[in-house]
């Protein structure tokens, strides 16, 4: 026995953003629009609650599912903010980031050889996560002409009808696309007709700018087949705390918790204390951060419009996804980095359907954003 990677690990290529990361790290004074996390620090009250919990010596494990005080607050918050009603005792699991939740769902709710339809472009972990779980993947590329929304047409065309489950993320990373309740209705009908489970990554649910977020689990006949994933990373700017949660029918959560209790035991305790405070006292700061993102979004979209870069009006998360003016987006991104010191990520790094586009993260202060836009403008003109 040697310490060679297992076949299913070997089958997963290194992340497509790795090369850009290495290039960018070698350079000084770059402005990065390639960051997938907020530029704000976590709200001070949440940080302070974490410090206080440490001072009090609250450093032991918590219940596997997470502290009950946290789960009851999440339950109340989700009910008020997204109309989702889940029992904090049986239908909710606090995880180390939404990413852990998704990994648990792939492993606990799918069998090796099952098929997972993955709406793309998407966050980089879905396909590898499925592969690690021995699950086969059906790529479901969304289309620029649909503004990267998931439609019945692309689900049918990709063969998702044969899949056992569907995973998607709206508001979307990397496109910034959102879906309204009406648009989700078609997806829901498709999933019911073809008996697909749904893993709905709603980590950006509170970062929408043109319409309220709708969770697919609120649509008729969907609650029983859906697990919803959310967390504190994006809207609360708490990425480094590693705290997310999954909500779903009791049977699904119990299965996920079985994997969780033997692997993670419990989500980070300090982070759970911070999250309790975040839900109690930091919602105003979330609103303020959201307002800031919206201004930057308007700024970036206006500038793209002026410089003639085609970009649909992305209405969520903190990404815009303009068409790349060159045929090869990878080459463009590399040249932009070398010549103008602006880092962006080519859409191809996020799977099928992203090619020919660029992910622009506007989680960056306005002054830097302005400089970056000026540089992009001079680069493309």
């Amino acid at each position, binding site marked *: 026995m040697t310490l060679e990677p297992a076949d299913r690990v070997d089958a997963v290529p290194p*992340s497509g953003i790795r090369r*850009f*990361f290495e290039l960018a*790290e070698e350079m000084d004074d770059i402005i*990065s629009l390639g*960051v*997938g996390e907020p530029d704000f620090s976590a709200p001070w009250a949440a940080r302070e609650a974490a410090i206080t919990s440490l001072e009090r010596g609250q450093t032991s494990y918590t219940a596997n599912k997470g502290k009950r005080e946290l789960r009851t607050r999440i339950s109340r918050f989700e009910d008020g903010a997204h109309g989702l009603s889940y029992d904090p005792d049986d239908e909710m699991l606090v995880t180390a980031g939404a990413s852990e939740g998704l990994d648990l769902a792939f492993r606990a709710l799918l069998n090796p050889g099952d098929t997972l339809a993955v709406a793309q472009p998407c966050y980089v972990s879905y396909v590898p996560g499925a592969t690690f779980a021995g699950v086969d993947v059906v790529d479901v590329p969304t289309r620029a002409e649909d503004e990267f929304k998931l439609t019945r047409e692309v689900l049918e065309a990709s063969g998702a009808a044969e899949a056992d489950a569907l995973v998607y993320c709206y508001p979307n990373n990397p496109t910034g696309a959102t879906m309204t309740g009406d648009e989700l209705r078609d997806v829901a009908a498709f999933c019911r007709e073809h008996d697909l489970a749904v893993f709905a990554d709603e980590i950006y649910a509170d970062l929408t700018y043109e319409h309220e977020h709708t969770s697919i689990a609120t649509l008729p006949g969907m609650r029983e087949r859906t697990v919803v994933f959310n967390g504190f990373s994006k809207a609360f700017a708490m990425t480094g705390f590693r705290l997310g949660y999954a909500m779903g029918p009791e049977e699904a959560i119990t299965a996920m918790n079985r994997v969780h209790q033997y692997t993670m035991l419990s989500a980070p305790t300090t982070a759970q204390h911070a999250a309790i405070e975040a839900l109690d006292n930091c919602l105003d700061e979330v609103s303020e951060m959201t307002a800031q993102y919206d201004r930057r979004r*308007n700024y970036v979209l206006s500038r793209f419009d002026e410089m003639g870069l085609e970009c649909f009006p992305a209405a969520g998360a903190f990404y815009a996804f303009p068409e790349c003016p060159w045929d090869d987006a990878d080459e463009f991104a590399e040249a932009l980095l070398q010549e103008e010191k602006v880092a962006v*990520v080519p859409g191809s790094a996020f799977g099928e359907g992203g090619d020919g586009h660029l992910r622009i993260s506007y989680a960056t202060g306005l002054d830097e954003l302005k400089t970056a836009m000026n540089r992009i403008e001079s680069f493309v003109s």
Partner: protein
Amino acid sequence: MSSRREILDLLGENARYTTEDLAHMTDFTESEVEEIVAEFEDAGVITGYQAVVNWDALDTDGERVRATVELNVALDRETNYGDIADRIAKFPEVTSLRLVSGDYDFDLTVEGDSMREVSHFISDKVAPIPEITQTVTHYIMESYKEQGMEFDDHDDDDRLSISP
């Protein structure tokens, strides 16, 4: 839809945003932004634009001495708070003046080139005003936050340059 109030919020955050920046960030056109700002200025809603200065970070040459002063006053039939405030606010040394609740009446901030100058100003100009019964002066030793801006908040961007 953007509101006129949003222009105030944005200028409050950074008064150096250009008309073009403001138009890009909101649903207003540049000429609408200009009009809104002009209206706020005319109506006395926007009364000025100033930099937030951390004087402590400046070389000692330019250092300013600042003090907050608690003032107690005695009113009579002919004199109200507004009358006294008018007299005090006129001095250029006074950078802010507020009527407050609690143990004293006015809270003013005074600025000068030296402690001596500030002390003389309080004893020669403010204290002799007939209605003023007491002054308590607190020299500012260090400032950590002004107008919502924390000085040296150690909040550097330590994110990875590219992340998924």
